[in-house]
């Protein structure tokens, strides 16, 4: 009897655990050294979807993914406004290449630097590229890897969450 009740108690309590991942609190910097705490992505009043794209300067599928999205960026923003953060997971070997590469390719995304991959690790991201879409502080879409055509699924998610 006691055993059954304890099992019930643990099960009921487990139901209350939110399995949907919240964004952990990590300090990142932008390209001019301004700090940003990733807690801001948990804002439940934020109406616009937020895209977090994890990439690195040495990752060819990541560059292809971001270049593809850049080509459609203006028209996408006109249809459904959203915020887009490209989070560079480059370590100190290549981190200095982030700014010239981003500017050299003419990308217009907000760039954040995750130097020792603390944010990537805290979100349990195994490999890059990985894209997360957040809506009101909740992760509504997660995708890893990039092959041409995958961007269409992202555009659909952005349209349905606007």
């Amino acid at each position, binding site marked *: 009897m006691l055993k059954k009740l304890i099992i019930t108690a643990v099960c009921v309590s487990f139901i209350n655990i939110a399995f949907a991942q919240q964004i952990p609190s990590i300090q990142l910097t932008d390209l001019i050294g301004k700090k940003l705490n990733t807690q801001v992505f948990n804002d439940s009043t934020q109406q616009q979807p937020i895209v977090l794209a994890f990439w690195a300067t040495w990752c060819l599928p990541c560059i292809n993914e971001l270049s593809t999205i850049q080509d459609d960026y203006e028209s996408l923003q006109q249809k459904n406004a959203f915020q887009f953060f490209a989070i560079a997971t480059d370590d100190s070997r290549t981190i200095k290449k982030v700014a010239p590469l981003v500017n050299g390719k003419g990308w217009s995304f907000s760039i954040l630097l995750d130097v020792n991959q603390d944010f990537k690790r805290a979100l349990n991201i195994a490999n890059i590229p990985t894209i997360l879409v957040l809506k009101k502080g909740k992760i509504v879409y997660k995708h*890893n890897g990039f092959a041409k055509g995958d961007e269409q699924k992202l555009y659909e998610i952005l349209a349905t969450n606007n």
Partner: protein
Amino acid sequence: MYVKSVTIFFIFLLNILFSKAQLSGSIESNSALFVNDGKIVLASNEATQKLRNNTYLRLDYKLKKFSVGIQAESYSPKALLNYSPDFKNAGLGTFYLQYNNDSLRINATIGHFYEQFGNGLVLRTWEDRQLGIANSIMGVQVKINTYKPLQLTALHGKQRNGFSLTNGTITGINAELNISEITKSSKWQYSIGGSLVNRNEHLIGLNKKNILLTSTRISIKKGLFYTDFEYAFKQAEPLIENGIPNNNFSFDGDVYLLNLGFSKQRLGVNLNVRRTENFTVYSQQNVYGNAFNAGILSYVPALTKQFDYSLTNIYVYMAQSRLTFNPIATKAGEIGGQIDLFYKIKPKTFLGGKYGTQISINASKWNGLSGRYNTTQRKYKANFLQAGTLNYHEWSVEIRKKWSKSYVNSFTITNQFYDAVQIEETFGHVNATTFVFDQTIDLPKQKSIRFDIQHQWANAIHKNWIAASTEINFSSKWTVFATDLYNYGNDNTARKIHYYVAGFAFKPNAFRLQLSYGRQRGGLQCIGGICRFVSENAGFSMQLNYSF
């Protein structure tokens, strides 16, 4: 009745406790089943266990300001090929308890943690599962940023090695001060930083127990320009040869690292220059120079282009920061630099076409340190700014062009000089030129096909290679791929081998499963400028990962 009341109270209490709790985690499992296919045969000590698996289960539990987490790992029946023998069986790899207060900006961790001071020259701990690097520190870490311009970090503990810890005890403090945040300057951005790291180790036969590492840094940005400089110094530590310390010979070491950059819309240039002398630091001295990067505390990566294609990754440079009196190649460090240029030709111009043309250029050159070296007496004196033997140089040009909404291609040419004597302490040097032509075609209904062909002309070592790969994307969930590398120019007929791989990936949302069969070329596998050697092998391979 009493039991019921207690249980109801228990349920109520747990519900309050768990009502704001969050559980997240991930599982990653990488397996290989080796096959003797007649051409590729594993070494007899490796062939005894043909099935290999590395599995990582990570769980993080967050309740208000507290988080706890574990990472369980299994290397059973045996770890993947060429992983450190310290990764064996199953166990708890890491665990932590963390307190995080966002309003006071204080973060404290007990257990395992990862950290990097500055560029990582004096301390970097991180995890790279493909390289078999898992060198978190187990101890205490406190980060304070209550006064916004100043970020302070203090840590104390021992570094992880497999399922145990290395002998040395690491104590470190780091400070980063953003001066422009104090002066409220918007035109200039200044920041300075400094680190002190002490390694304390009681090793039999070693007289010097404490080694201090220091780092000073400055970073300046103004408008389109930026520059960073870091100087790191290591106190003299006894020479270690074959794992045995020799108290008669002690050498200090240092690193000068300068970075200059400029970037504006459609143009970016970056220059790295570095001089490294005897700067490889381990948290346990008798593992100095081990092949598995176990116990490595300093992060001195190769500052060269990280290539994307299989043939351009045959001759990969490894930073030469180690002092060695090996008669094959006596060396104390390296000096050199690399430059990157990124440029996008304006869209709607003759050369830019409708979407613009992207050009990336990289060049690098790395030499040993010139000086007087006496191998028998274990003495040397390196010149400060004089280059010695050429270790490696490379230049590459990549042009990427989107021709229409559904067709993109890129063309890459690379030239590399690689001296295996200086880099690997083996024999030979090679000059290799590689061409890569890569194209992607969009097909209807979110499908696409990518295809590349590669050729390498090399005057020595493996000689010429040809390669091709293709990837067909049926949807955002399904991809099939095939690749073949053929060393047709090898002087040894038995080494004229096709390294082919074919497989598929299934990747719905946060789940990924990849299965393949084929042959893996042997050589250095490098990520982030750190390399590990992988023997050539043939068979099945599976990668699975899922996060929640």
